[in-house]
């Protein structure tokens, strides 16, 4: 039975064969997933990676960039979104005028 501190599911177990033929368990901390853009799934800058509990303790300005859709869309996707809205709005107005 492993020692109490190892009886946690947040540790990854890896079974390793030693030269002597024994198999030994190595415990590794699970890695937290990083923030991803909702559209292009690219990594988001200025958003910390780590356990949710720790991130929640940070001040809001350190949890996500100070931008519309900050922490949700990457800058490139946000720009494309705004441009497409502007263009569709622009076309909408051109139709009214013509």
């Amino acid at each position: 039975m492993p020692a109490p501190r190892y009886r946690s599911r947040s540790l990854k177990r890896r079974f390793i064969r030693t030269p002597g033929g024994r198999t030994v368990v190595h415990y590794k901390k699970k890695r937290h997933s990083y923030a991803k853009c909702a559209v292009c799934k690219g990594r988001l800058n200025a958003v910390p990676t780590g356990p949710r509990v720790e991130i929640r303790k940070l001040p809001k300005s350190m949890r996500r960039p100070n931008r519309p859709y900050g922490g949700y869309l990457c800058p490139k996707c946000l720009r494309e979104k705004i441009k497409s809205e502007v263009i569709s709005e622009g076309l909408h107005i051109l139709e009214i005028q013509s």
Partner: protein
Amino acid sequence: MAYLLGVGRVCVKTAGREAGRKCVIVKVIDKNYRLVTGPPELTGVRRRKCNIKHLEPLPYVLDIGEDASDEEVAKKLLEANILSEQDLVKKQVKP
């Protein structure tokens, strides 16, 4: 249809914390930069230098002079009634 980024051109900021907000070009600084203003109390975009890459032009041009003041731009912008409801900055009523 490439709109010219000249003085008086109304455009939308596509980057930075003011992304998605409408603003007016007040002065051409050089090839890459324009002086832009919202004005702040109207659309929340402060009077500042802005790279043209961060601007997306709209099909409107206000006839304002070079380096016009914020009040003048505000007046012309309201006259042209381009701004919709959600463009305007909500007045935060101090408790």
